[in-house]
């Protein structure tokens, strides 16, 4: 029962023919679109390595059926940087040494981007830790990760403050 879905990934629209409805978003990204930055850890929603933004919200790509996503927009780690300029969260992970082996890092960074846009952590490390608890780091780089999320939050709010009021960077009207 082949059918197709349209999916915008990192700003590029794709029409994807699915010959098998079992494909998860994670496998679609890695195996069909060759975007291997998104990692497969547990494949069961327990580790967070596969975190991506779906329509702007962080989710586990491993527990999402691609067939159900017709018309959706996905952002992966490959879509964060602006050319050679790193996203503030990426820069903060490097500056704060928020990683060791790096396998969980794309998921950590995507989760942090989602966390900052949700806006529930403020400047509280306890809230950052709680709201990042869906991302497991076997190397135990949590201290650097928490620091990186807090610093990226500062950097992003400084950047937003520098924008003229009411005109967000992407040009849309503020909600």
């Amino acid at each position, binding site marked *: *029962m082949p*059918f197709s879905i349209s999916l915008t990934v990192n700003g590029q629209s794709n029409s994807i023919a699915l010959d*098998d*409805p*079992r494909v*998860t978003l994670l496998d679609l990204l890695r195996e069909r679109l060759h975007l291997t930055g998104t990692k497969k850890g547990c*494949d*069961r*929603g327990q580790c*967070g390595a596969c*975190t991506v933004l*779906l329509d702007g*919200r*962080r*989710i*586990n790509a491993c*527990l*999402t*059926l691609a*067939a*159900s996503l*017709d018309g959706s927009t996905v952002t992966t780690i490959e879509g964060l940087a602006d050319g050679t300029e790193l996203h503030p969260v990426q820069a903060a992970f490097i500056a704060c040494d928020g990683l060791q082996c790096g396998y969980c890092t794309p998921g950590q960074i995507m*989760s942090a981007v*989602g*966390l900052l846009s*949700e806006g*529930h952590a403020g400047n*509280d490390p*306890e*809230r950052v*830790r*709680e*709201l*990042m*608890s*869906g*991302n497991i780091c076997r190397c135990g780089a949590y201290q650097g990760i928490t620091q990186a999320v807090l610093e990226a939050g500062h950097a992003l709010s400084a950047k937003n403050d520098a924008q003229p009021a009411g005109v967000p960077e992407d040009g849309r009207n503020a909600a």
Partner: protein
Amino acid sequence: MNRFDFLRPASLAEAITAAAVPGSVYLAAGTNLLDLMKIGVTRPERVIDISRLPGLDRIEWLPDGGVRIGALVRNSDLAYDARFAAAYPAVAEALLSGASAQLRNAATVGGNLLQRTRCAYFQDIASACNRREPGSGCDALQGENRLHAVLGWTEQCIATHPSDFCVPLAALDAVVEIEGAAGRRELPIEALHRLPDAISATESVLAPGDLIIGLRLPEAAALAGHARYVKLRERTSYAFAVVSAAAMLDMDGDTIRSSRIALGAVAAKPWRAHAAEAALVGQRANRETFETAATAALADARPSGDNAFKITLAHRILVRALTLASAGTPKVMPALPASPFPEQHAPAPKGDLHVA
């Protein structure tokens, strides 16, 4: 994962018709279903995608002061809805204590109500499990069962219901709206999930093809000022409850007019503690009263295995939930929602939290 047919019905009516075919399952976010399909516990022939059905993703305030929540509302959208969190703070706290931020962004209200047990023997297809395969037996009875049920279990099944959300819903008399082949009907949430009996371990009263389309909560303003959900976990965050309790008090000064109490992770359904509520009516809010209520809540508890400690722990968590509720709903959601421990940067509420 087995092969299946994938259907995208355009309307509720089409979905109900499609699901009438045996072997069909509904897919919303899939955070539980897909996991179970990957490990072979669920092997549907047809997956019916209801995630885009119109009109099921709204939070609607009712003229009587209650609220109607569409089945496709995401957990995080409900928990962070300011009006909802102010009206039903224990429900918001329970939602935010469950799973991870990623899962809460995806998981739906309807799916949460129907999520399956995390019993390891249910999830291991090589084990006997009366829920997965009726009549095959229960390997949990003689297995690793320290986290299993202490109320309402039989030798058919000693699994627990894993939901946090359902615990305060049970306390608040939520009503579940169901659409099925026979039309629309509704059930109090206490009648949705089933306890195992002597011969079977059926999980809910829903018939094949039934779809939860929403739930309603009655107005509960009198309870909002003293409402907590408390959840003991084996790690700080992102874990299912060992035991949990929802406690809501309608206070007149120091006196309890009425209360709503339910326990989580103790039985195959969210466990409404009517006897504890009765014990609190007209009593002063103090340690002795809360102890009496907790004793009443757990009067029928008995271990199903290596889990006698859960009875003591459930007693203590309920006393703590009542103590925290009587101190008042926090003005700001705690950094660690439902944590039984005081916040590091916040003063502990007055009174001794620990139970000897």
